[in-house]
């Protein structure tokens, strides 16, 4: 652990200072950091998975606190916790099958399930799968009532000799598997653009008019992909005040030969009737299917709904957040410096507190994000395909395990 401490504090500092911004960069760097945490972690003899998970939680807590607005950090931490759990269970299951011994000490299990008896490998494996899965009717039916007939004493001391060698091998295997799985996760984050872009041709049709707001890399790649497949379409880019990232996107699109029109944000409603589809990026997708997106998005979504234009959100799976927007832990917005909007020098005399009665008369609010409720979203396009907002909770239960939702709470208990 001490070896990774400088790395962690360095990344925490970067997050705090807002030097790393944007879900993709944050997600990738978090995953890389956690991979090095895992690889530096010294595995104990007992309870390895739990110890590893605790180590990840301890680091994750710091990272999340450093910049709560970057929900991707929390997402990746939870994904890694989920990976550890999954790998642990599968290795246990493999171990049982390989040994075909009935006695397995319970310490490989989640610490919470102490009283679980040793069972046959098959039962165990199915049970393990169930613990990972969110409770559903299917799993309830699958669940075999387990008898507590076999007592702990069955795991006698006699087999300890045979296990030691195996254990070290297993230890290495768990760690190795987790690292490999995190590697897969990083690759997934890297390739999410390609995965999403593949679906572009199915969604963008010939001679369509697309509207987007601001600049999202996912949207850009999506449109590029459609263009490469010889689709001809037209894009309206709302400039995305106050940062005007839309201007950058327009430039990039024109370079690729896409017919582009730049409009002001306030012209969105006027233009929406000519638009066939709205395609936008997101900052995070919440568990209820709501979207946290750059400022102005709610207005675009409402305009789209008013004119029955499909509102499509493209986002990589690292943006899937297992929390609900009403959760007090979720910081939905961040207010940036007013200097994006106003020039300080020009307005400095409005903020001369000596000649007013001491209360600032001029307030400038510069929020970063908007919340778009799920009912305004027509479709989510993630790297695993298109989903409707009501399906998001299901998607989330595939990526995360339910008891990891509160990273902080778990570590404190």
């Amino acid at each position, binding site marked *: 652990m001490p070896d990774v401490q400088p790395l962690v504090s360095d990344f925490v500092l970067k997050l705090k200072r807002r030097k790393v911004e944007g879900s993709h960069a944050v997600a990738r760097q978090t995953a890389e950091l956690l991979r090095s945490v895992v690889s530096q972690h010294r595995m104990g003899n007992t309870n390895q998975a739990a110890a590893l998970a605790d180590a990840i939680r301890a680091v994750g807590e710091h990272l999340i606190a450093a910049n709560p607005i970057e929900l991707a950090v929390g997402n990746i931490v939870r994904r890694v916790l989920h990976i550890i759990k999954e790998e642990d269970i599968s290795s246990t299951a493999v171990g049982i099958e390989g040994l075909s011994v009935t006695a397995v000490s319970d310490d490989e299990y989640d610490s919470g399930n102490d009283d679980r008896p040793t069972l046959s490998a098959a039962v165990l494996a199915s049970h393990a799968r169930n613990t990972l899965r969110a409770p559903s009717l299917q799993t309830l039916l699958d669940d075999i009532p387990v008898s507590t007939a076999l007592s702990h004493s069955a795991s006698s001391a006699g087999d300890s000799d045979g296990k030691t060698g195996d254990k070290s091998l297993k230890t290495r295997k768990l760690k190795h598997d987790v690292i490999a799985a995190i590697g897969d996760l990083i690759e997934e984050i890297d390739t999410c653009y390609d995965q999403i872009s593949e679906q572009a041709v199915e969604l963008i049709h010939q001679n369509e008019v697309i509207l987007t707001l601001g600049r999202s890399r996912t949207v850009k790649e999506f449109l590029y992909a459609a263009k490469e497949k010889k689709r001809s379409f037209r894009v309206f880019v709302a400039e995305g005040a106050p940062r005007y990232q839309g201007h950058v996107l327009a430039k990039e699109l024109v370079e690729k030969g896409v017919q582009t029109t730049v409009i002001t944000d306030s012209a969105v409603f006027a233009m929406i009737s000519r638009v066939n589809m709205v395609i936008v990026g997101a900052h995070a997708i919440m568990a209820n299917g709501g979207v946290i997106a750059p400022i102005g998005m709610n207005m675009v979504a409402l305009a789209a709904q008013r004119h029955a234009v499909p509102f499509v959100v493209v986002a990589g799976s690292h943006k899937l957040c297992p929390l609900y927007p009403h959760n007090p832990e979720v910081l939905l917005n961040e207010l940036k410096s*007013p200097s994006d909007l106003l*020039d300080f020098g020009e307005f400095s005399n409005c903020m001369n*507190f*000596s000649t007013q009665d001491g209360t600032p008369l001029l307030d400038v609010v510069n929020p970063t994000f908007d919340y778009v409720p799920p009912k305004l979203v027509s479709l989510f396009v993630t790297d695993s395909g298109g989903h409707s907002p009501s399906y998001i909770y299901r998607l989330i239960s595939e990526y995360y395990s339910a008891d990891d939702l509160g990273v902080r709470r778990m570590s404190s208990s």
Partner: protein
Amino acid sequence: MSQKKSRGGASAGDDADELSRSPLQAVLLADSFTLKFRPITLERPKVLLPLVNVPMIDYTLSWLETSGVEEVFVFCCAHAQQVKEHLQDAGWTGKPAAREMAVKTVESHDAISAGDALRVMYGRGVINGDFILISGDTISNMSLKDALQEHKDRRKKDPLAVMTMIIKQSKPSVLTQQTRLGNDEIVMAIAPETKELLYYEDRADASHLCVTIDKDILASNPTLQLHNNMEDCYIDICSPEVLSLFTDNFDYQHLRRHFVKGLLVDDIMGYKIYTHEIHSSYAARVDNFRSYDTVSKDIIQRWTYPMVPDVLSFGNCHEMKLHRQGIYKAADVTLSHSAHIGANSVIGNGTNIGEQCKVSNSVIGEGCSIGKNVLIHGSYIWDNVIIEDGCKVSNSLVCDDVHLRAGAVVEPGCILSFKIKVGKNVVVPAYSKVSLLEKPSNEDSDEELEYADTNSAVTDSPPFSSMRNNADHPTVESEDEDLGASETGTSGVLGYIWASGDTGTQEEWRQSIAPIPKEKLQELQHAIAVDDADGSEEDLNNRLREADHDNDSEISVVEDDDYTKFEKEVEETFQRALDGVHQDNLILEINALRLSYSLQHADCAGAVFYSIMRSALVAAQSTTESLLKATADALTKWRDLLRNYTKTVDEEMEILLKFEEMCQDITKEFSALFSKILPYLYDKELVSEDAILRWAEEKANADESDKVFVKQSDAFIQWLKEAEEEEDEDEEE
């Protein structure tokens, strides 16, 4: 990501540049070398004072770290131990592995100015490349990259460009002629193409709206921009030569007043200073209580993002959450249901606020407990303060561990230093500064130096048997006595109330936390209106006339009230004469004054006459008879002195004009007596009849209002005329 990339790219590009090979260093002065934050700075160094609940130096250091500075030398002087301890606690020093930026402290107890500090730094020989010179009370979020690059590029072309100064646009208030940070407006002349600084004046005489610029500057620069809307951020990028310059010129003390002005004036060495203007980012220095207030509000309004309470949490500070309307609350705050927190407020961790409280535009620190019905407006309450029920605090600064008992009222502009206790229902009058420590008597106010008072870090409170007040604050004292009788035990204010002697009441409202009172603003507004009405043309003429007199190299727009100043000094000299200085010496002194102000003999006559009349006025009782008598006495006594200056008719005329002017404006008491004093002057041969007659003639064509006094003394003038005619006739006969 993009930021990171660009940073990486920049440093890669720089590698070719030899200058950038040395790590970027910074010198942080953890002492302001001023007395502006007295009495608080007697007990705690200024850089450790919390600004929105975070010590100022943490803002500065974290900005330096963000801007890629690799090594910081923190120069400690007063309270060096406290600064060091803080740096250790906050994790800036001690853990080199965890941080990219190394923080080292340099301690020196005999430095009494920024100049001394830099000379010590030079002596250490640790600075070996370009460095950033900053004071520990500067808040910024600017990116140094561009400014640094500009500085380096310039250095390559011209090794004499030793310094780049960061400036920022900010309009000064038209009324008060000071910036929003409470400083006087700065006048800078900048060459628009090269951004070279040509002229810098931070103490411009705002009341006369004129500056003096060397003609050479105008001659050598085809274009030049004069700014009065620039704020000096006090962030300088310096070359190592700066340190040696300070060592060579051992009398440089102040960075701006001595060093910058010195370099600008000195054309032998030819060193140049350039400016870099920042637009969207923020930088400001907390220099006085007014700027403390302003910068706090800027932080709350997020101009300093990401240096805002909810984003930038330092090691030992608790997390803050931003709510609507700019309300920041820490996690563990106990708020009564009926308490009302208004906009732009910050409530620190562990603070307890009682029922029916109203808090607005204020910052409340950690661990405070605030009772019921308390009103807090525009104030800065630091940590562990206890405010009992029904108190009222407005526009004031309340330091750690202060205790306000029930019903206490703190009026605007107060400073309550550490551990002050205010009794029940006591009213602390506006603009008072209260401290447990006595005001040092050996103050030397013009140098503005902070004493390295090693004993002043008192942690345990000295024993107080009773309340102690300086005699010059009778208001509090009397109130205390009243209360002392009615209340049990508790009384008054425990601590010394500092007299606002050295800065003067004039300055008090300019640089306090409280907004400028309405009356003052009206006064100022009125003054400006008057200025505009009569000032413009007459002033201009005056100036032109006086400029003609000036034959030296300055294109001088001489301040139009040189004469008033002169008059004042003459009066002061005269006052001393009344106390027994010999008359000859007096004449010598007045002559010297005349030469130093380069005025005419006639001006002297007027001034001396004025002084005499003033002395008469002071001596006299309120009745007109006594005034007449006093005037007669004074004129008799000082006749010889005045005769010295009334050698020609012109000078006598001057006396008459002066007398008339006095009667009209300054000393109206004389106006009734004009016609009586005039013959007296004639009798004493102070003014000849020629002068009087010429005066009357001159006035014949003037306005009606000007002729009042001529008319008043019409009889006398007639008599004089007749006498003259008679004389003429006599001669003819």
